[in-house]
């Protein structure tokens, strides 16, 4: 029986493994992707100071550190069930069963679907799929594409596609329907765009500063949004155009795009056909938390965190004895926050194992402060009220314990 099994070899899982190995715990990290790194692998963006955040390099740093501590990392392992036992957990995978005293679930996030007619055609993929193909596998996803969904993630990945020399026609909204909801609503999308304006160079920055950060300013921005779109890195971004259908017989051949009113309603007879051979759908991220649910961990829906989140305290401990969480399963934030959370969760597990908590108090406090500092300094904020969301989940934990 191991001291801890960590599910997910992304930034949170690897950072946690390093913390645990530094205290000589017996650790096994499992991940279903063939390589460790999780979604950190695909990340590639320029920080406001001009430095490149290269996910492959960052993964290598984490992995080198973990390997120097002889961490057992097993890839290609899919966990499909977990049982809570008297003194720990039994983790069922396609590569056999693992027994462990403690369990850290660091499964990250998944992408929400924003379905539009024709989205099952080959050539339609999630924006994250295009990121992995481009930066990790170094394969072109097509010759010319369009992005359906304008948000923090899709803007960052659109830039990555462009860097790799993959042509994008534009970014537009997915047509508003029962599922796409706020992703098809110009006003909500504009709110998100203003939050990322600081990341974009020149043109978009100027655009962002034109409008006050007031509701009136945003209303005006939507109402008078330029017909030709606003260019970010030379690529038009539209909040008053929506992709109403994806067309083709055997694969993507074109999309039908139309103008929309400020409330997202289509403007009749404004449809145009744009020839593309791939479409990226961007519906945002939600915490990938099924495995915590399987064990019976209580959840709370917190919009600011991106969805249903396993209840946990500031030390990343859940109400289930021996179960910890870290990274995007606890709420959608950057990979830097995930790493800091992983380090903290790892120390929490150590504290639980050595049962001499006082000797670790200082280190735990430092790790907790680090999570907060990294969060405050994050250049990308997936949700503006992340701090409130965090408070909600911590107070849910206290109520649970009471």
């Amino acid at each position, binding site marked *: 029986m191991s001291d801890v099994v960590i599910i997910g070899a992304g930034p949170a899982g690897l950072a946690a493994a390093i913390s645990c190995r530094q205290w000589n715990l017996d650790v096994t990290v499992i991940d279903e*992707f*063939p*390589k460790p790194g999780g979604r950190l692998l695909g990340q590639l963006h320029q920080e406001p100071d001009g430095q490149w955040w290269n996910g492959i390099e960052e993964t290598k740093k984490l992995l080198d550190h973990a390997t120097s501590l002889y961490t057992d990392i097993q890839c*290609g392992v899919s966990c499909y069930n977990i049982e809570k036992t008297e003194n720990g957990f039994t983790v069922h995978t396609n590569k056999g069963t693992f027994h462990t005293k403690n369990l850290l679930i660091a499964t990250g996030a998944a992408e929400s679907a924003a379905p539009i007619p024709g989205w099952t055609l*080959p050539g339609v*993929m*999630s924006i994250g799929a295009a990121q*992995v193909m481009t930066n990790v596998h*170094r394969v072109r996803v097509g010759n010319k594409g369009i992005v359906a969904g304008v948000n923090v993630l899709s803007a960052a990945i659109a830039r990555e596609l462009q860097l790799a020399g993959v042509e994008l026609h534009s970014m537009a909204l997915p047509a508003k329907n029962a599922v796409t909801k706020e992703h098809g609503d110009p006003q909500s999308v504009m709110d998100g765009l203003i939050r990322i304006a600081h990341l974009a160079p020149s043109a978009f920055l100027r655009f962002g500063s034109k409008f006050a950060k007031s509701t009136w300013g945003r209303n005006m921005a939507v109402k008078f949004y330029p017909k030709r779109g606003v260019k970010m890195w030379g690529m038009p971004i539209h909040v008053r155009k929506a992709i109403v259908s994806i067309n083709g017989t055997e694969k993507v051949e074109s999309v039908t795009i139309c103008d929309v009113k400020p409330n997202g309603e289509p403007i009749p007879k404004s449809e145009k056909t744009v020839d593309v051979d791939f479409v990226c759908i961007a519906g945002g991220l939600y915490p990938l938390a099924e495995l915590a649910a399987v064990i019976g961990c209580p959840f709370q829906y917190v919009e600011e965190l991106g969805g249903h989140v396993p209840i946990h305290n500031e030390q990343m401990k859940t109400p289930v004895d021996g179960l910890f969480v870290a990274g995007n399963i606890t709420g959608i934030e950057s990979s830097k926050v995930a790493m800091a959370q992983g380090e903290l969760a790892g120390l929490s597990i150590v504290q639980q194992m050595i049962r001499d908590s006082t000797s670790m108090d200082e280190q735990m406090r430092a790790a907790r402060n680090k999570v907060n500092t990294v969060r405050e300094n994050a250049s990308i904020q997936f949700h503006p009220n992340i701090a409130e969301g965090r408070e909600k989940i911590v107070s849910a934990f206290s109520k649970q314990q009471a």
Partner: protein
Amino acid sequence: MNNRIMNHPVLGKLEKEAAFTFTFDGKEYQSYEGDTIASALLAGGVRTLRVHENSASPRGIYCNIGHCMECRVTVNDTPSVRACLTEVKPDMVVESGKPKAAPFTDRENMPHTYTEFEQKSKRKAGNNHV
């Protein structure tokens, strides 16, 4: 057909290890070490990995990270393997997902319980679902 991104302004030149071959629906394709079935096939110009079991409409990768199950293929006779999570090995035999005989196509006559399913499917000859 080669859809590889050979040069990248930040990530640099593509340095891949020796290539090897595998087959998809009997045709030979090239793969590099570290490729998944999905990435090697897309690099080779293949978008369609299976067809819908019932309607036979074509499907390819969607999420590319193992969540959506759209890319399931048959690998060395093992069905329902996710192409996006499976590394290609030399001489691997990969086959696309094919349409399957639908046991119940009449909406009005769909079984609602397992018992009904068993009763109704017994009456249907040549049904490969039971």
